[in-house]
């Protein structure tokens, strides 16, 4: 018995060795790693839903690529970069994971980007918003999908001014993320001809927004920009309603997802401007996919979960097209071939790793306009792919050739 095992092991090692030598598919299976937050504050926009989206992508692809089975593995990073990092190392070194996606947390995403650059694997980030991924920390193996802080600030700032919201006041979480979101948005607002009347900083995870909101109210600005995230955004929207702020002024969420609207309800959020990369009710294709997703998850997908589907799909197409799961070949193939799927059409991969797709400015419906749960957005504007993201000329990425 033992000898059989040994022989089998030897044969498998030989097979693996020769596969590597020919630059074909390494290992018996092609593995997709969904690195996500299962229990923390991002679990609604990622979590189990992201795993399902990845599985759906694999099923739609036929479950096999180049004759090899495709497998999805998932891990809960618990929003800790060290848990994520040791898991990703283990996945790559021991379990032969070929591609990573989701991430959701910028510290996790940046740590993963470093690792994939060292170990040559493909990483398609959909959930983490930091623009550092395509600037200071860009790598030849990182793709930034779905959205980033620049696109959110840019989309909301420009479009809201164009819709008449020309005076702004910011409610900003007092740390690096809030500051950069405020700064980016303020620049866009000014460049589009709007005015910034002021800003107030609140501490991270603040429990009482009353004094900040009173200042916002006193500013008489038409738009209150919420440069914060997660629980802070939710609490500031709730308190803004309690203070009657939303009767005269309009909120603009700079990092708000449909799941936040769902949990806050339309009464609290109506009229708010939101920028996202995708919405389930955009067209027939998105509706069809989302129905299938809804049947299994009992929730509509977030833009991030749709992004995971798209990311896995494009990776599998690239493995098929390039004929190998070698990261260099896959990335080269993706740079040559713009991708189309239910997330977006003709999405081009830029040299800094930014995937160019359309972004959308939405306005949250009034309760009377909605046809029920998940019918939340009016599409106010489609932002073309070439205008949605940070221009390449401003990139700090070392991979970008300066002209």
């Amino acid at each position, binding site marked *: 018995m033992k000898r059989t095992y040994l022989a089998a092991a030897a044969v498998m090692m030989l097979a693996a060795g020769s596969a590597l030598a020919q630059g074909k598919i390494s290992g018996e299976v092609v593995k997709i790693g969904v690195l996500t937050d299962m229990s923390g504050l991002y679990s609604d926009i990622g979590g189990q839903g992201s795993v399902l989206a990845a599985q759906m992508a694999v099923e739609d692809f036929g479950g096999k690529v180049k004759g090899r089975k495709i497998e999805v593995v998932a891990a809960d990073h*618990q929003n800790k970069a*060290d848990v994520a*990092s*040791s898991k990703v190392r283990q996945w790559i070194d021991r379990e032969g994971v070929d591609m990573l996606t989701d991430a959701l947390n*910028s*510290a996790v995403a940046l*740590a993963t980007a*470093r690792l994939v650059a060292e170990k040559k694997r493909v990483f398609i980030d959909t959930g983490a918003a930091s623009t*550092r991924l395509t600037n200071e920390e860009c790598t030849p193996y990182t793709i930034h999908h779905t959205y980033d802080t620049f696109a959110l600030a840019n989309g909301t700032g420009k479009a809201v001014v164009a819709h008449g919201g020309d005076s702004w006041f910011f409610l900003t979480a007092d740390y690096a*993320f809030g500051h950069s979101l405020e700064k980016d948005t303020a620049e866009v607002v000014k460049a589009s001809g709007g005015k910034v009347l002021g800003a107030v900083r609140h501490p991270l995870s603040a429990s009482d927004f009353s004094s900040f909101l009173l200042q916002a109210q006193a500013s008489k600005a038409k738009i209150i920009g919420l440069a914060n995230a997660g629980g802070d955004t939710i609490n500031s929207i709730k308190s803004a309603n309690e203070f009657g702020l939303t009767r005269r002024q309009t909120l603009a969420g700079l990092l708000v997802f449909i799941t936040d609207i769902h949990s806050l309800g339309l009464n609290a959020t109506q009229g708010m401007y939101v920028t996202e990369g995708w919405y389930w009710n955009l067209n027939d294709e998105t509706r069809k996919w989302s129905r299938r997703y809804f049947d299994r998850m009992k929730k509509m997908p977030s833009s991030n979960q749709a992004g995971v589907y798209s990311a896995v799909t494009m990776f599998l197409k690239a493995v098929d097209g390039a004929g190998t799961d070698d990261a260099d070949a896959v990335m080269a193939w993706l740079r040559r071939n713009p991708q189309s799927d239910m997330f977006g059409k003709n999405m081009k991969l830029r040299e800094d790793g930014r995937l160019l797709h359309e972004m959308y400015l939405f306005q949250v419906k009034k309760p009377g306009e909605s046809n029920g749960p998940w019918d939340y957005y009016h599409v106010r504007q489609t932002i073309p792919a070439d205008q949605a993201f940070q221009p390449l000329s401003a990139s700090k990425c070392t991979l970008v050739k300066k002209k």
Partner: protein
Amino acid sequence: MSRQTLVYLAGLVLLLVAPLLFYPVLVMKVLCFALFACAFNLLLGFTGLLSFGHAAFLGSAAYATGFAMTHWAVTPELGLIFGVAVSATLGAVFGAIAIRRQGIYFAMITLALAQMVFFFYLQAPFTGGEDGLQGVPRGKLFGIVPLAEDWAMYYFVAAVFVFGFWLIRRIIGSPFGQVLKAIRENEARALSLGYEVDRYKLLAFVLSAAIAGLAGSTKTLVLGFATLTDVHWATSGEVVLMTLVGGVGTVVGPVIGALVIVVLQNELADKAGPWVTVIMGTIFVACVLAFRRGIVGEIAARWPGKAGAPKQEHGPGH
């Protein structure tokens, strides 16, 4: 040979062959947290001081080492020394303020100070805020041995761990350690015997902070980054959990506790899905309710050693 020596020898052998049996990066992480928990236990288990701000020392050293390695391009051993120096200094400041009060007040003061440190790192530009201080190189030990290879890094971490563990044992076994235990048992009595209790407590606090810093610095070298998680209060809570699960006041307990918690976190990450926090909570409750002495404490209490370890509630003493 006493049972104790045998246990240590077995541990040492296991430490040397561990990278062949388990994933080395995971073992390194376990060792870092084990050292962190041992440092915490020096204070809680042997001096009777419950610090709820130890993440500040772990994190400060992690950031300091990360900063030194990336901005000054120093060698890893200098990075470690710098990290330890920073956390020891911080420990002196924390200690000087906190030891003036006892019990829950002591815990609250350390927590408050640690929160101040957290907000400092949240705001400070060099930490990268919630992005973390990323891309710390492992460098070359003494400028010669490249640590980029996992096996080289492993034996370096193992050496650091053995040194830290030995140091803590040495401290506990020394006359100084005896005074600490006396303070733990009855502070007023130690004072009446003529010991300057505050000085002893302060020194114990600084030593604990320094060793916690050593753990933090080493962790940064292994994983290549320092993030806000390291200074977050939840990490201070986690080290309490590790120590309690392993056994407060036992020498080996925190190591076992750290092993259990870190391995669980890692293994449950892809198996339990959203249940990780629930499982951790259940373990904590079970520990507090059912076996308060922790894993090692229970073993020591049920099978008291024949030769080396005297029958004692609090682990092997001298």
